[in-house]
């Protein structure tokens, strides 16, 4: 292995990448716009949730309740009859249907504890869950105010003081931004390293290299280091400029440690990219393979949904995917400020997976050159 060759070939890769407008666009986009939008365009669980009301009472109190549902949380309520309710819910037009029974106000004033029915379309998980809580609160508040009945509410005998660590306001944007970086890192490492190889093959330059005093190992290492370096620079930029400065996300842990972990992850994923490129052979086939490989890697890595909620078997299998460890690592370092003493197992996993992927890729790469 000749380090000077690796350096020179790597510089060539970087020069080539800088001149490739599509790839450069992808790199820049992934580390700026992509991160910004995922941090700011967090989907609020309750946004204009459609609600309808069957008002069988038509009393001041029922009107009060209806008036209380307002955008942005709810759409202005549609007044319907009991007969329409099922059909509208079947068609998925309403997530919530509130049924206020006849004589609600009368019973309320008489202290008979009347009952309001709230129908929730539970096929819309997120809205159903958080929305029904809101509906209950709104109805209770309106009824309370109507009754104008300020009972000397007994002070709660025990108070629960909840504090969220590492992200005190539970700002979803922080999480999305950081996980967005980890998704971008994986995507770019795969695409850049794989495309760099396929481009050489399609242009016939790979053969040209091989008649020179250069070994396959040097070619592969040069592609891995150069593409990883580009992604690493992008990651650092994204974290410091986009996250800390622009989006104001506090990064708790050590940037250097995170970048070290990222480098290990890049080693593994760039090797995987080269492996996929040797299997695919052509750009379009590579594109298809990417979709089949990247989606499972990202969806099951724990960046989208908590890893703990997945079936045990999936969790076990995903231990062999670099993303899993990288996601744990980045959450630990960037949010919890964990040090090497905490994340060393992830580092070892990443290095091990990287070494394995690298050897497999090298084997296939040599065969690919034949």
């Amino acid at each position: 292995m000749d380090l000077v060759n690796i350096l020179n070939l790597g510089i060539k890769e970087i020069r080539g990448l800088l001149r490739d407008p599509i790839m450069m666009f992808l790199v820049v986009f992934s580390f700026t716009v992509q991160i910004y939008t995922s941090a700011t365009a967090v989907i609020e669980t309750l946004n204009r949730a459609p609600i309808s009301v069957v008002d069988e009472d038509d009393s001041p109190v029922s009107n009060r309740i209806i008036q209380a549902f307002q955008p942005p949380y709810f759409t202005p309520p549609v007044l319907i009859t009991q007969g329409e309710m099922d059909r509208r819910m079947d068609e998925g037009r309403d997530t919530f249907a509130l049924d206020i029974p006849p004589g609600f106000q009368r019973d309320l004033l008489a202290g008979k504890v009347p009952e309001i029915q709230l129908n929730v379309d539970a096929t819309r998980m997120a809205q159903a869950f958080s929305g029904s809580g809101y509906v209950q609160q709104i109805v209770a508040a309106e009824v309370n105010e109507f009754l104008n009945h300020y009972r000397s509410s007994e002070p709660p005998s025990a108070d629960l003081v909840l504090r969220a660590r590492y992200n005190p306001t539970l700002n979803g944007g922080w999480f999305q931004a950081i996980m967005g970086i980890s998704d971008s890192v994986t995507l770019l490492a795969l695409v850049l390293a794989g495309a760099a190889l396929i481009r050489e093959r399609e242009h016939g330059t790979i053969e040209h290299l091989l008649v020179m005093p250069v070994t396959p190992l040097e070619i592969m290492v040069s592609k891995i280091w150069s593409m990883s370096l580009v992604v690493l620079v992008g990651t650092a930029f994204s974290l410091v400029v986009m996250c800390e400065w622009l989006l104001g996300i506090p990064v708790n842990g050590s940037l250097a440690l995170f970048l070290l972990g990222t480098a290990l992850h890049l080693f593994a994923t760039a090797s995987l990219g080269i492996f996929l490129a040797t299997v695919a052979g052509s750009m379009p086939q590579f594109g298809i393979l990417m979709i089949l490989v990247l989606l499972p890697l990202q969806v099951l890595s724990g960046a989208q949904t908590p890893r703990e909620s997945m079936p045990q078997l999936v969790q076990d299998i995903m231990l062999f995917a670099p993303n899993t460890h990288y996601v744990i690592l980045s959450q630990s370092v960037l949010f919890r400020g964990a040090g090497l003493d905490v994340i060393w197992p992830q580092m070892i996993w990443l290095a091990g997976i990287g070494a394995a992927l690298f050897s497999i890729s090298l084997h296939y790469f040599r065969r690919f050159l034949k």
Partner: protein
Amino acid sequence: MAAASVVRSGAVTLSYGAVRALDTVSLDIPAGRMVGLIGPDGVGKSSLLALISGARAMQQGELQVLGGDMRSTMHRQAVCPRIAYMPQGLGKNLYQTLSVFENVDFFGRLFGLDRAEREARITDLLTATGLERFRDRPAGKLSGGMKQKLGLCCALIHDPDLLILDEPTTGVDPLSRRQFWDLIDRIRAGRPGMSVIVATAYMEEAAGFDWLVAMNAGQVLATGTPAELRQQTGAADLDAAFIALLPEADRMGHRRVEIPPLDHVASDYAIEAEGLTMRFGDFTAVDDVSFQIPRGEIFGFLGSNGCGKTTTMKMLTGLLSASEGHARLFGQEVKPQDIAIRRRVGYMSQAFSLYGELTVAQNLDLHARLFKLDEARITPRIREMAERFDLTDVMGVRPDALPLGIRQRLSLAVAMIHAPDILILDEPTSGVDPVARDAFWQILAELSRKDGVTIFVSTHFMNEAMLCDRISLMHAGRVLVSDQPQAIVEAHGAATLEDAFIDYLEAAIGETDAAAEAPAPTGPKQNRGAPSRRIFDPRRMFSYAMRETMELRRDPIRGTLAILGSLILMLVIGLGINMDVEDLSFAVLDHDDSKISQDYVNQLSGSRYFIEQSPLLDYAEMDRRMREGRLDLALEIPPHFGRDLLRGKDVEIGAWIDGANPTRAETVQGYVQGMHAYWLTERAREEYGDAAVAGDFSLQLRYRYNPDIKSLVAMVPAVIPLLLMLIPAMLSTLSVVREKELGSITNLYVTPVTRLEFLLGKQLPYTAIATLNFFLITAVAIFIFKVPFTGSFLVYVLSGILYVSAATALGLVVSAFMKSQLAAVFATAMGTLLPAVQFSGLIDPVSSLQGLGAVISRIYPTTYFMTIARGAFSKGLGFADLAASIWPLVLTIPVLLAIATALMRKQEK
């Protein structure tokens, strides 16, 4: 008819962007003749042929083919069955994974031949071309010559009046070339009325044609019979005549190549091959090849594409290790691992293979460094090379922007950068114009004679071979003869090297061309054309559908995506999408440790959501364990908690949640608050009775359709529409864009198949596969994810089939905008996922969308199938309830197909 003209053009001009490919070309091509278009690559020959065949749309000027205006769609439709067009490139319009028979059969169907007629005619043509033996071999595995013969069979299947061949013999061995022309002659003898127009770069071939058009830089230089052209210029052969016809500026600096004879033959050998053999599986690419090349010699390797030239060269350079035999450079064994020997060799591979993204200077610099030139020597050496190869003016330019001739000089400069003793050049001049080619050979001559460099060069041009000191003729992996070119010609008493080569080839094959004796293919019994004029012919549609299916079956990666793609993604998303948070770990820092505090903790640890970990001893431990990510929740119960509570004093329980993942943290928060409230209520109930906890009213919550509020039940029916959009649309887009990228789209342009037949033929197989996928993922939903199915299965299935048809139709629409397959993959992924995720009711109900989102949701088919899937799975609905969503789907399919047809072109723009 013989006296009339078959093609008449008036001031035809064609531009690609800023490049003018044809510049006011006016021609009158006589009918019933064999007409040649001559000139180097890139002068507009192919563009002119594409216009004549109707494959490319006219821009300016007039063009009459077979007596009608090619700008008129009517006329094109009428004459299309009478024209056959074979585009440039070996087997460009063939389908590489289809067998010989399947290829011809496909064209037969497109031209509306019935089964019996097809069978008879295909056998006839295959016998005549000698391909009958290879009937079942995939086209991709044929040799170059055989591919071209197969292309000819496909072109002749419908018995055309005008046959257009674009460089049919480039890269084909001389014997196959001769056979090819013999075949054309025999066919013409059988059909004297047929006109043939051929583009060629081989002047030797063109010399035998009836009438020639010499072209340069988009313009016609001269027309006439070969004899007339020679007379006009007073040249001895066509090559010279052509150069003489060129404008003054292009001829500048041209002189005939002169290579002084080798004054003494060196005693030591630079290159030696001894019994070199290379096998790939059971295929022997190079078979027992031996030769010895003295130092300083120019040694030529002559043979067709695929005869083993390149493989031999790769063994000499150490790119491949020989299965048997030895290769020696300067007496040293070539070993692939041996890096040192490579420093003495310069190699120039077949295709231009330098980095287009680096400038000329950067390319030279990179190679100088890889060859380990001293830092101090790099700059002077680069300057020296630039001057010698006349590259000084283009040092800052990227090679992509340079003409082929200059790029070849650059390649040579790169190969020479480290001053090697041996140059190995693999077809260095293919596609280069004659003037630049001569200049290139002049440089080679200097290198050999002045610098004593040994040059090993392969070519398929006979006149280049004549310039070599010695040559080897190669065929099918074997060297037929090695000697001085003149000696080879004389020994055989042949007129030219080509004749001698053919003699050797025939002797080697051990048979004269079997096909030569075969009868010329007979024409079809009756003149057809009537069935192919129909606006919609199901046979042509099925012809495309069948072919698509066969291709897909033979492409493992695309096939996997088609059959298993949706299934894999369904499993992945189903497993990954689970938002149900359970088994949260928590630990308690209990300063009180009373019965009441334990009761509080027990309530948490007793629930299915929480698992209690070993208790915390102090804050430091809490910090550490939370930082390690081992606790989702930490509770602190203050001292005297139980006592104070009993006394009615306010107490405070502290709870810390790991907020790294906010969604999860919110859920934890909800659970803890809920349990805390419940614990308080229970305590109040115990102490004061039910009345104390009753409110003013009660709110009864009914979670409909999914009473247990399970993620999978909610999400899976919504994910099905997503997946059935993504992959089917991507596949149908790819099916069209692939043809565009590979060039077989030409068959749509020049055969009678209509756009609608083409599109439906593409859509059909993918809709069938998508339907299969639909059943598979529905089965996964029901049996693996246990999502209850409550509605009408029949309605669900029917809507599903409608929906996947809409998805594939949408893919066809997208394909109109895409040129490369890679772009198609990502654009379809983005373009289908975004509206499907954002605007189809997956997350926010359609009724809460506003503005553009609301408009998209109303026209996007996923919206409707989302309602149907949810309704049929979870809401127990049937046709009457879902009709409002089914009709829009029914309507979408014809609308999308109409748009796709309108956007599709029947000619290249």
